[in-house]
């Protein structure tokens, strides 16, 4: 990284994406209207668990304007079964049919697809399909499902426990049982939904003449989809293209292979016409992968002086009806136990987890994956310990953080943290909050009868993972590589193509900044193209806080390689030793000779101008592809603090102040980083106070619309103060650490701790999220029995 003199990296560059998005010129998947387009609608089960006794689609087929109706049996003959495999030892592999064949396993599971001239007609046709179900017993609760031998979601698995895993280090039971201080709690983090503003959708187009299939999808992972679809459809991979243009949010819920995508590819191939399906909001609530839904029984043990000696936990994770491809049902439950020790030195540890199938929509990766729960648990235990010990929660954390001299630090699950400025972030938070003053103010207003609380949360997250560590333990594909393909045109403009696929993260701007700096040209000279497998080198997509590290790293490597070649060409043209040349701001300059320079476009022209203009034995052209695998990955971290007030009358929680001090390594664009932090915190506040996916005991989804699933609005949120600590990563090209998920990792924990702090006079410690006013009312009433009436 020797010659990288940052000019654009670190700058608050306004986003290039905004011009089209602000003027209604974006291209989301529903904006595509190829000629001859047909529209699909899915018939979905209204039962959570049932055998399909009878399915007659003939009346639907007969409607004018209906071109085809297919069932699970039809699809089974067109595509291979989808099975998400994992090397995890105690994992039972199961199938996901694109359309249900014998039975349905959750409300909303698709059983048939209608293809018609319009979505309106397709929905009319759905009503003509005659379907009868034989209901089966529903397992809607993970505890119940775990115990059941007879009501199995997947008969082939022989059990509803689809996976178990354990990480252990030291002698945790002895350590805990002999410890001076023990804090124990049962934590419950309810089910959550991503709720992207753009619903899922795709347009599949198979051209019979060329045998070429194009899938446009609102997906985070075009590369991943292309690889698996070619296999499942038995198409040569070079005949498959997956494109994600503008995607309206993803947050993990658009990162797996969905049944609808596979179905539409099969249908277009059958019909030889393009077919579109756009999820409506009801379908989104019923079928997009959901998140979290865990019970964690955890115990933390400390010495009398507050030093942690041990931590053990039992995790039960409700993974819903299917193990999704490619992440599998392990992704959420295993990450909880992998990361439970958090940012602390925990010498003795055991984390055990089970993923239990129930008759609900499948869970999948969602912003933070597992770590919002680990923070809620560990940060909650730390605050409980602090209260028991009579210690300040900040002091207890500072005492137990992984220390600078401990890095690189190997955690009990084998993950290595390369480096983190934990102490610095916490000190900065303390200063930004003016902690002492805020505590003083808190005591004053508490005496006046107000319930004010302060809650902290520190986390450290694994980001920018390379091939040594699978994003989901044991999963079959590698997510450790990305590439950058840079092509210079004869006029000197550069197209930088990546296979990451943003859904709002600003890659077109951030990666242009990186390429421009690495090469030595202006921001405007670089155009970034993402998300199209036809033009991008192999990769998977945008997820898991990896793009800055992997795509950014590849961009630097490619940019530097291009620059080296450009300088050799320039040296030839300027009759100067390339070692005396530099490329800056689009000009080749001679070191120590400020008068001599050559515009980059002259170099570009020469590169394509034939051998007479190039150095001897140089291949013409100016383009390069570089792949980057950081191998292990790196760590980002942050400390959050929330100041809240609990309304004594309505029991509503109001967030008064929220501060984040985060370290994501070298920052490419602070505007974008701050946006990611604030967006993540907003989702975390939603998760802590408002949002819950609720199924009843029959597996019926009660929160099936935006009326009942409460995403916070501008009126519920507040300005979020963000400060940066920049500790460049020693492990990655560029020093980037990757970020984006921290908001949801830190916020629920900070808010739970703040509410517990506010209600500590009543002895209430929050162990269940979300903390709705209804829930708080019940807790406060129970705690107040015999005390003063509220």
């Amino acid at each position: 990284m020797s010659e990288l003199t940052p000019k654009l990296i670190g700058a608050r560059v306004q986003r290039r994406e905004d011009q089209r998005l602000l003027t209604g010129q974006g291209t989301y998947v529903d904006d595509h209207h190829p000629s001859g387009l047909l529209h699909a609608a899915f018939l979905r089960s209204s039962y959570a668990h049932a055998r399909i006794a009878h399915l007659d689609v003939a009346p639907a087929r007969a409607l004018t304007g209906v071109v085809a109706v297919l069932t699970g049996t039809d699809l089974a003959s067109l595509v291979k079964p989808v099975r998400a495999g994992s090397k995890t030892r105690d994992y039972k592999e199961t199938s996901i049919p694109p359309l249900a064949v014998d039975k349905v396993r959750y409300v909303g599971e698709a059983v048939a697809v209608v293809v018609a001239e319009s979505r309106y007609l397709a929905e009319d046709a759905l009503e003509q399909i005659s379907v009868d179900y034989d209901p089966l017993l529903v397992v809607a609760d993970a505890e119940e499902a775990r115990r059941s031998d007879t009501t199995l979601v997947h008969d082939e698995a022989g059990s509803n426990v689809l996976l178990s895993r354990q990480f252990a280090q030291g002698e945790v039971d002895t350590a805990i049982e002999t410890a001076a201080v023990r804090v124990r709690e049962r934590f419950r983090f309810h089910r959550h939904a991503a709720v992207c503003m753009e619903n899922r959708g795709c347009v599949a187009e198979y051209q019979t003449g060329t045998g070429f299939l194009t899938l446009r999808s609102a997906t985070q992972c075009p590369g991943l989809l292309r690889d698996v679809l070619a296999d499942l459809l038995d198409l040569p991979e070079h005949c498959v293209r997956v494109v994600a243009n503008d995607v309206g949010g993803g947050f993990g819920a658009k990162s797996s292979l969905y049944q609808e995508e596979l179905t539409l590819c099969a249908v277009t191939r059958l019909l030889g016409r393009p077919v579109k399906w756009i999820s409506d909001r009801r379908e989104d609530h019923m079928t997009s992968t959901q998140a979290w839904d865990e019970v964690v029984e955890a115990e933390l043990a400390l010495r009398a002086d507050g030093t942690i000696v041990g931590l053990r936990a039992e995790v039960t994770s409700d993974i819903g009806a299917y193990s999704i491809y490619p992440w599998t049902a392990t992704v959420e439950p295993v990450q909880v136990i992998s990361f439970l020790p958090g940012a602390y030195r925990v010498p003795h540890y055991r984390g055990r987890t089970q993923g239990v199938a129930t008759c609900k929509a499948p869970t999948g990766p969602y912003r933070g994956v597992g770590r919002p729960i680990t923070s809620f648990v560990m940060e909650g235990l730390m605050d409980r310990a602090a209260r028991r010990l009579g210690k300040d929660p900040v002091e207890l954390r500072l005492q137990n953080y992984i220390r600078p001299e401990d890095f690189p630090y190997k955690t009990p699950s084998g993950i290595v943290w390369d480096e983190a400025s934990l102490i610095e972030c916490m000190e900065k938070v303390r200063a930004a909050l003016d902690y002492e003053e805020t505590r003083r103010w808190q005591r004053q207003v508490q005496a006046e009868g107000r319930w004010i609380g302060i809650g902290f949360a520190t986390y450290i997250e694994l980001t920018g993972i390379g091939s040594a560590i699978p994003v989901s333990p044991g999963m079959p594909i590698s997510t450790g590589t990305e590439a950058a393909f840079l092509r210079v045109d004869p006029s000197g403009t550069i197209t930088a193509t990546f296979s990451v696929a943003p859904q709002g993260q600003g890659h077109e701007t951030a990666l242009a900044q990186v390429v421009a700096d690495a090469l030595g040209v202006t921001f405007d000279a670089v155009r970034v193209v993402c998300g199209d497998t036809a033009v991008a080198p192999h990769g998977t997509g945008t997820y898991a806080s990896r793009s800055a590290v992997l795509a950014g790293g590849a961009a630097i490597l490619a940019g530097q390689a291009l620059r080296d070649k450009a300088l050799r060409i320039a040296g030839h043209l300027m009759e100067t030793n390339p070692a005396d040349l530099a490329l800056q701001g689009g000009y080749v300059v001679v070191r120590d000779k400020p008068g001599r320079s050559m515009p980059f476009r002259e170099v570009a022209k020469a590169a394509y101008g034939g051998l007479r203009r190039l150095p001897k034995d140089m291949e013409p052209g100016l383009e390069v592809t570089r792949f980057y695998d950081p191998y292990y990955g790196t760590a980002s971290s942050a400390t959050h603090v929330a100041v809240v007030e609990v309304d004594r009358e309505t029991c509503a929680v109001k967030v008064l102040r929220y501060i984040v001090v985060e370290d994501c390594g070298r920052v490419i664009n602070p505007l974008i980083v701050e946006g990611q932090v604030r967006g993540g915190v907003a989702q975390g506040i939603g998760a802590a106070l408002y949002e819950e996916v609720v199924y009843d005991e029959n597996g019926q989804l009660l929160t099936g619309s935006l009326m009942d699933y409460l995403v916070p609005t501008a009126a519920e949120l507040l300005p979020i103060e963000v400060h940066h600590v920049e500790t460049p990563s020693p492990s990655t090209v560029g020093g980037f650490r990757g970020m984006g998920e921290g908001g949801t990792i830190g916020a629920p924990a900070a808010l739970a701790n703040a509410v517990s702090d506010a209600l500590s006079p009543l002895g209430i410690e929050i162990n269940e999220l979300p903390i709705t006013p209804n829930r708080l009312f019940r807790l406060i009433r129970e705690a107040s029995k015999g005390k003063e009436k509220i």
Partner: protein
Amino acid sequence: MKEQRHIRLIINGETRSGQVEPRKLLVDFLREDLGLTGTHVGCEHGICGACTILVNGEAARSCLMLAVQADGAELRTVEGLAGKDGLHPLQNAFREHHGLQCGFCTPGMLMTAYDLLQANPTPTEEEIRAGLSAVLCRCTGYHGIVQAVQAAAERIQATK
């Protein structure tokens, strides 16, 4: 039941017409028949606000209107927000303050903010947040959006 009606309306200053089934939603007419895909469908039950446009100068949810109801009306969508001299102050402010990430809610947010400032040209932060609660954004946490609307309000007032 296959009745079609002829409708004629003014949209972004231009007269347009079409043939629609009465049940066709206004948002679908805009997107499919008129090719104006800037207005987005987010929920079809009037909560997310992504489909918000101006109907006779006032913000309304186009997913809760039938296209036939817009016959004879004057509509404005995000494609008509910029003027001949360039982007509207709201659009510029959104870009300056990072008021968008994925952009899906943005058209609805802009048109709602436009109407908000029309009804209340000098709103407080609280009033802005209350007014913008009409549109859901999942990406930004509204931080940049609120700042953008404040900045745009000031800029618009300054040019008066």
